[in-house]
């Protein structure tokens, strides 16, 4: 079962319809901003609703402050691709999980940023919703940007993750459907399968471990507590 880590529920009243569609098309969880409560919540039938924070701002100082405040309360932290300074910082910072490509901006992923991201397990997030909303020349331009960015990430061994980016329940697509879109964007069949199924699950599992009380730092966990003498 897969998790769609890029759903955009704008109103908590709509959450239920997103969950219904997600369950129908075979997802076991979604991650969305704008929800209250714990970073990892469970709905009926073990369906996970994960809290996500999308960080954006003009300066590095503002981004740093936001990441400081949201990390402890969010299962997934994403920073939009903007200036080189912000991208390089976010790519290196282990508290940031995703660099999200915004097709409407002129900022592009650089080789050097992708290599930095690859060393600190920060993934590139590609959202498919713009491809559903646009047509003709405008869609062609988005496909071009997506294909170039994905090529840069794959060449630098940076993980790419596909998500729906859905702002309406019917903009969600099944994992199998998204795999075909991954192929359209220049991924191999196996890579696209991993980008929607395994890579998001691995990311969520890593962060669940971080939220557990036994976690100390990357690679350091409390296995057994000693007794005081």
């Amino acid at each position, binding site marked *: 079962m897969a998790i769609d880590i890029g759903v955009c529920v704008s109103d908590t009243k709509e959450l239920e319809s997103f969950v219904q569609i997600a369950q129908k*098309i075979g997802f076991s969880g979604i991650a969305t901003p704008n929800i209250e409560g714990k970073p990892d919540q469970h709905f009926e039938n073990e369906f996970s609703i994960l809290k996500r924070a999308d960080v954006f701002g003009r300066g590095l100082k503002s981004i740093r402050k936001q990441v400081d405040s949201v990390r402890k309360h969010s299962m997934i932290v994403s920073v939009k691709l903007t200036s080189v300074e912000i991208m390089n910082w976010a790519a290196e910072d282990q508290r940031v999980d995703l660099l999200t490509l915004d097709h409407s901006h002129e900022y592009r992923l650089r080789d050097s940023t992708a290599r930095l991201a690859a060393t600190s397990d920060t993934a590139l997030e590609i959202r498919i919703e713009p*491809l559903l909303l646009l*047509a003709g020349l405008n869609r062609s331009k988005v496909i071009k940007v997506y294909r170039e960015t994905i090529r840069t990430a794959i060449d630098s061994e940076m993980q790419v993750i596909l998500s729906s980016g859905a702002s309406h329940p*019917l*903009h*969600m*697509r*099944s994992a199998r459907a998204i795999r075909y*879109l991954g*192929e359209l964007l220049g991924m191999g069949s196996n890579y696209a399968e991993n980008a929607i199924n395994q890579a998001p699950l691995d990311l969520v599992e890593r962060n669940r471990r971080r939220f557990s009380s036994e976690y100390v730092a990357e690679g350091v966990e409390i296995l057994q507590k000693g007794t005081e003498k």
Partner: protein
Amino acid sequence: MKKTRRRYLSFLLHSDDSKLDDKQLGMAIWKNLLSLYGEVSAADSKLYLVEFDEKSGAGILQCTASSLNEVITSAVLIGSIGKSLVSFEPKKTSGTIKGLKR
């Protein structure tokens, strides 16, 4: 003349409007295929909507084996038909209709 290999795809169309008929759906897939891959690919796909149940949204598409991925990608990228939002979910592919229903 060499016979082209056919593929059948079963799918489910999620929609906020149950009035969508097979003609509207077939035309939407065809238009997207044409827009994404061009006139020659659209013609070579031999796309045909075998059946579509308006109530459940379940249906079967037929196309050539070589164009299957292109047809599925085009169908998945349909965001809306007319004024209704839709979500196309590919289910199973097979070389025969009987195989789909197994």
